[in-house]
């Protein structure tokens, strides 16, 4: 108690208190807003992949997408979207959606690879649509051209996903997500299915070879070291300006204070 009353009027007391308060609020907020990862659903073993897929679908998807995948008020019809859409949406964790917000966000997948394959088979069986791919089929390393991929990316993708694939804002709260750390097959499938707000890039508009080049460039950008130092998010002048005003000028002013202070 004596400690508190002794230092109550210390000039650092207020800033320290502020720091504690901010830290406390931040801690409370992050604890309170932590959400639980949804538990994986165990599908019952069925005789065929399609039937298995249908079972999973009925349990986990039909409440929004309709009992026959015909769609409803809150979800579109899945008839004709093809296995590619299912593989992209479900294997990246976007589906099932966590909450009915502006768009589905990438998160930890609820279903494992087998279940995804089953779901894809079921949806593909409803009507013809683009097929799913495996990572081995996407031979980006052998058949892609990095520089060409960069040109294609800047022409067709950077306006939404930003010059370094870090993502960008769309209207009314939608966003183009970062394309970093995405499996090659999912990048490919996204281009051919046009998930949610993303347009469809059919093979005649961006040929399969061009798609592989785009993937190769994305992987190159992903693995490129931060030439020149900390990348500051690869979003451009906004973070650079922030750094100057906090670290740059702040430090210099701090040094100026030290410089003009009387030595002991």
């Amino acid at each position, binding site marked *: 108690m004596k400690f508190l009353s002794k230092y109550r009027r210390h000039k650092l007391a207020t800033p320290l208190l502020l720091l504690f308060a901010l830290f406390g609020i931040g801690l409370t907020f992050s604890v309170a807003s932590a959400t639980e990862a949804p538990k994986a659903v165990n599908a019952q073993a069925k005789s065929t992949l399609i039937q298995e897929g249908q079972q999973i679908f009925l349990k986990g998807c039909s409440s929004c997408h309709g009992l026959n995948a015909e769609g409803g008020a809150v979800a579109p019809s899945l008839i004709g979207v093809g296995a590619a859409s299912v593989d992209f949406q479900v294997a990246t964790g976007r589906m099932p959606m966590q909450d009915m917000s502006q768009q589905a966000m990438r998160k930890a997948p609820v279903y494992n690879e087998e279940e995804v394959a089953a779901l894809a088979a079921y949806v593909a069986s409803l009507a013809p649509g683009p097929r799913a791919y495996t990572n081995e089929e996407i031979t980006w390393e052998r058949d892609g051209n990095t520089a060409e991929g960069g040109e294609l990316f800047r022409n067709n993708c950077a306006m939404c996903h930003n010059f370094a694939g870090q993502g960008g804002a769309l209207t009314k709260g939608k966003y183009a997500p970062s394309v970093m750390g995405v499996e090659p097959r999912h990048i490919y499938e996204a281009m051919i299915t046009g998930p949610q707000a993303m347009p469809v890039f059919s093979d005649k508009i961006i040929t399969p070879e061009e798609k592989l080049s785009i993937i190769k460039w994305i992987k190159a950008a992903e693995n490129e070291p931060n030439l020149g130092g900390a990348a500051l998010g690869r*979003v451009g002048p906004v973070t650079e300006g922030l750094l100057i005003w906090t670290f740059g000028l702040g430090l210099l002013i701090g*040094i100026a204070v030290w410089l003009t202070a009387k030595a002991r």
Partner: protein
Amino acid sequence: MSARERIAGNVANYVDERTGAAAWMKKNLQKVFPDHWSFMLGEIALYSFLILLLSGTFLTFWFDPSMRHVVYEGSYQPLKDVEMSAAYASTLHISFDVRGGLLMRQIHHWAALIFMAAIVVHLLRVFFTGAFRKPREFNWILGIALLTLGIVEGFLGYSLPDDLLSGTGIRIAHAIIQSIPVVGTYLSFFAFGGAFPGEVFIPRIYIVHVLLLPGIFLALITVHLMLVWYQKHTQYPGPGRTEKNVVGYPLMPVYMAKAGGFFFIVFGITAFLGAVASINPIWLYGPYTPGQISAGSQPDWYMGWLDGLVRMAPPLETHAFGHTISWNILLPGLIIPGIIFTGMALYPFIESWITGDKREHHLLDRPRNVPNRTALGVMSLTFMLVALINGGNDIIATHFDLTINQIMWFSRIGIIVLPPLAFVITKRICLSLQRADRELVLHGKETGRLVMLPHGEFIEIHEELSPAKKFTLTQHEQPKAIALVKEDARGVINPKGIRAKLQARFSAANAENIAKPTAAEVKELEGGHH
């Protein structure tokens, strides 16, 4: 006499016989400079300018300011065989194939950002302490000119590499030029040598960036510093400091050591930033072509407010008699910035008109003692901040889970509502601080020590302020408002008319202060008071 002294003597003699330098050196070596950290902000800008000159000269040895088409043959693989301008290719060359090239590019760009930030905080210091008053009005105008030219210089500088991000900025500048009524299309065709983007814009802005503007800067900065030297620096009020003296340290050796040392520190910090933080990674942006764009395209921070204003502008265009005027571009791009910078330049004269104060001032104001000016400054800052935030609305939206539409509407309404709110709140805070000062002087500082009086009452012991502190808190002037003289003794109506009325109104608002304690009041309370 030692050998060293003899040599020094010979050198000094040589120079003096040819220039008569000893006469002015003798008093200037002893020139007194007040020492306060807030007086070093302008120095940060000055040293950043020197760093820009040095690092910029380095870059010119390799940069090719040409827009001719080349195919990339350097070492950065993701751009292999890509078509680009020579300017872009040479910047890639500097970044990857010249040792220290990327470091110097980054030092140059970080120094530019620090330069502008330092100018802004220096401007704020000068504004809030009233250092722009007579006899320093002209120096203030020079400062505003330096600020404006700095913004242009920075914009031209980062546009030189001809990358996708800065090229987009040029496209926007081109649209602003083109939108000017009557002469816009001619000006834009002359500036770009034809249709956008043309082949001559980069070489032309190169000369402006490395020759014309640096030359103007050198001249303006020299005059700016000479004025400070000749008029002597202002100082904060305090014991022993008056309007007629300067208290501080002599140029030699103290100021030389501290200021000189600070130059190396600013250079060192800038070099450190250049070493550890990537800035303007043009190899990721790609070469400029008008058919491409990146999400999250912003100018450098010192132009962010302009971008924000353009984004929030209402979609107004008038079409009449076969002609178009784009208010949605002219207002945020030219008219409002014009009003802001003109207003800033004229402010010393506006304030001296309001206060009627025509005397010299060398003692600075404590911001709380000039609540109207301080509130006006905070109001302007609020305006700029709302505009700046809107300039980054898409980056803010993705990182904070908001929508660009929300931020846009917040900015549109906020830029009108928040500044006056900021004015009122700041003025009230200043007046409260004045009240607190008055309490301090009259009743002393709270010590937190409680004492029980014999009759049971608890009181907190207050420590009387030292005479020095009391003086500092009360030395300022509290001028009265200018009274409105409707007619003089002979019944002649005031010829100034409405101007006089306005002056009286503003002056009255400006003179709103909490009366500071007088010597009599302090004496009354002195002795045995808690």
